[in-house]
């Protein structure tokens, strides 16, 4: 059985790639065995998983060197879902290879002009990756949204310039996401405190899997 590969990618650092990747993986793990491949040399995903008292719901592995879609399908065929946590650079082999290998690319983006400007190269790279990966679907995910902020409310309009669809499901700015990282768990494991955040991740998964 081929593993379903989701890459969480953005060249901008601090966009919430690891937070989305880890919680997404925890949500996917409720549906089938899931592995997170930490492609970032900073190793934040691995660090996250190592902090918890309880085992993280998804397996987390770090991977370096040359690899491609075939490698992933061969090495991780035991997993139903593979989530690639990419480094904050499009110049690295890892990010470009992830776009060429994945089924879904999720691009977390913050409601900030600087983040928008910095992410403008992504649609070009996605178009380039589609030349070798025709099944690639890419979505922007609004992250750390503050509903009362004018900037957050303006984001969907501004993102029309990207030529990449934006998920209806958005992730709000919540302290619980940072708290989960600190505890080495996902928002699903935080009981009532994590309910709203877990519902947001579920909405992302439902929209992506249903796409």
């Amino acid at each position, binding site marked *: 059985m081929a593993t379903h590969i989701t890459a969480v990618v953005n060249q901008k650092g601090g966009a919430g790639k690891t937070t989305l990747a880890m919680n997404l993986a925890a949500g996917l793990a409720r549906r089938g065995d899931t592995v997170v491949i930490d492609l970032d040399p900073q190793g934040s995903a691995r660090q996250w998983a190592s902090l918890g008292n309880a085992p993280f719901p998804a397996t987390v592995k770090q991977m370096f060197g040359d690899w491609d879609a075939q490698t992933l399908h061969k090495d991780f065929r035991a997993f139903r879902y593979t989530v690639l946590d990419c480094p904050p650079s499009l110049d690295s082999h890892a990010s470009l290879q992830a776009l060429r290998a994945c089924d879904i690319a999720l691009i977390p983006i913050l409601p900030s*002009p600087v983040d928008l400007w910095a992410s*403008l190269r992504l649609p070009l790279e996605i178009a380039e990756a589609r030349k070798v990966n025709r099944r690639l679907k890419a979505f922007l995910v609004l992250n750390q949204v503050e509903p009362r902020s004018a900037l957050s409310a303006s984001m969907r*309009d*501004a993102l029309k310039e990207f030529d990449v669809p934006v998920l209806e499901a958005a992730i709000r700015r919540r302290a619980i996401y940072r708290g989960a990282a600190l505890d080495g768990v996902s928002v699903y494991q935080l009981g009532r405190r994590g309910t709203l955040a877990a519902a947001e991740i579920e909405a992302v998964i439902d929209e992506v899997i249903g796409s």
Partner: protein
Amino acid sequence: MTTTKDKLSASVRQAKAAQQPEAETRSAAEPEKAAGKTPTTPKKPAGAGRKPATKAASAARKAPTRTRKETPAPATDKPATANEVRDSGTALFPERVWPD
């Protein structure tokens, strides 16, 4: 609210436009790189590189450059004070000898 929305969209369009030439340059350079060639500039016809001299430019070139006439250094190293007249030393026509 509308202002923020407009400003944000406009800033993205502007950033996109600024990145466009860069991307075009990159894509234009890639085939050359793949062919193992170093980018070369097309040969220009003789004299094509010369810019026609503008009136202002030639006038500026012809205009004599005024160099500041160096005044001889005062013979004494004694610093001048507000109420004191600087010693002209051995200079024939010092800039300032007497108070106005």
